[in-house]
């Protein structure tokens, strides 16, 4: 039997243990890393799966705000407030300049993508035709 499935199960278990009150705890993540190093037969497989879960959780707690032109701090604050309200949890902003958007903003929170850029609308138009 391949080691992938038990490794995934262990990673999920470790991930659940890394949460305190529904939020990732840096201290617990450190503890998990220590445990995996000392006790796991397949640390690479477990850590890869664990990394994926933690990365997804981190992404759920932050709003990656891609913008082509300058964005005012007020606009960022309003995006963060809207996202915090929508998801019911604290969302941290992560502004990033992306000239490929041409104009507008694209916000990503976890798996959700809020497209308000010219490039996004153009590609939607292109795929619709």
């Amino acid at each position, binding site marked *: 039997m391949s080691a992938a499935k038990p490794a995934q199960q262990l990673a999920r278990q470790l991930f659940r243990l890394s949460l305190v009150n529904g939020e990732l705890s840096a201290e617990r993540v450190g503890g998990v890393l220590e445990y995996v190093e000392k006790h796991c037969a397949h640390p690479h497989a477990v850590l890869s799966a664990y990394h*994926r879960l933690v990365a997804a959780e981190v992404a759920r707690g932050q709003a990656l705000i891609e913008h082509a032109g300058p964005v005012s701090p007020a606009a960022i604050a309003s995006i963060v407030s809207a996202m915090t309200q929508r998801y019911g949890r604290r969302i941290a902003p992560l502004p990033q300049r992306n000239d490929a958007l041409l104009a507008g903003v694209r*916000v*990503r929170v*976890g*798996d*959700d*993508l*809020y497209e308000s850029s010219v490039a996004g609308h153009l590609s*939607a138009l292109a*795929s619709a035709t």
Partner: protein
Amino acid sequence: MSTVLEQIEQQIAKLSTKAVRKNTGTIRTVADGVARIDGLSDVMYNEMVQFPGGTIGIALNLEEDEVGCVVLGDISKLKEGDEVQTTGRLLSVPVGKALLGRTVDALGNPVDGKGPIAAKEFFPVEKIAPGIIVRKSVSQPLFTGIMAIDSMIPIGRGQRELIIGDRGTGKTTIAIDTIINQAKINKVGLAGGDPKFRPVYSIYVAVGQKQSNIVRTISALEAAGALEFTIIVAAPAADNPANQYLAPYAGAAMGEWFMENGMDALIVYDDLSKHAVAYRQISLILKRPSGREAYPGDVFYLHSRLLERSARLEGKGSLTALPIIETLAGDVSAYIPTNVISITDGQIFLETDLFNQGIRPAVSVGLSVSRVGSAAQIKATKQVGGKLKGELAQFRELAAFAQFGSDLDAKTKAQLDRGSRIVELFKQPAFNPIPIEVQVSVLFAMQKGFFDAVDVKKVVAAAASLKEFFVTRKDALLTEVRNKAALDKDLEAKLQTACDEWKATFNG
């Protein structure tokens, strides 16, 4: 000029700048037509997802931290890390009369080179079958044009009748004959101008077949003038398993459109053995647990949800299904055959031995059954062929017994003679369906003993001569039989006279 500019500015201001929300994921692996995707936390079961380049897929496995999707299209352009988006839509295919005469793939895209299809409506590929309240019992006949079937194993509109047999026993031929017969009946009926006439449109779904076989089928339908009433859904062997898995559901959606709009349709699934194999392939790649013969646990549901969509609806139309199953060495007790036998309303079992003996169609009377029975037969057929199945079954029993001894009493000998004549009478060339009124006339002649004096080897020729006689010289009588659909004393007398007339001309 300034007002023009203001107008444009107002128009721009009105344009929505609202952000569009999309749920996304990234491809982790792509192999064998299946993509495993991280993310897509909002995806629904069976939802269409969009890959880069416009390729679409269907989410079939929703797991805790990944989604398994079958890709419907070219996977060679997909790579790890590509972004995938949910669409919020279930897979739909174009439906309607615009598809008649066309050959489409499992997604409803034309593959016959005749240009785009102007379909106005789309139906979801997966749909819950009609419930018990809206269903109506099957009572209207659907003539196959095959005398052995129409007289002994009648099929009704809305029925699911399985065609089962080994390879090369004529399963597809029966289905094609039925489609051709529907086209012939449609042409006569529509030309007659009867407002009560209900044409039957056909859908032929080819799953996992050789392209050459599909082309041959299309040519046969075209040559018989049946293509204009038929939709071909092709998912050939070279297609990916996802398309082969979807094709029957796409065909069912096209058939449902006719049913929902008060029309009658016939759908042929050729064949569901290959469909099950394609689904097994997908399931194994998706790492679903395998069961008997390595099929997944839901392989029964795969076929039951498909075949349950065929029905006759109260106040609407009907969808009749002719699924085909290929057996190995005549083993009807294998996994998939038993499943489909239990779902359908009867089966037409074709035997290799009969086929090799030259009895074609090679219908095994003993193992074939229609659970709808005589409810789906016109009265005239019941009158002339009601006892045929019993007689033929008795003949087979006696024939096996008679092999061991030569001294037979007169009654047994007469039964054997009659049985062998019936067998000969039911022989019928491929792609040559017989109209029901001609069938009734021939069976009438059989019942009245007109073939008794004919040598067994010449029964086929005699039957052909009788059919030709009726078609060329007794057209009015045939029309009367067709319209009355029952034999009264007057009609019986006319048929008797006609048969006497034929007997005088036939020197066999």
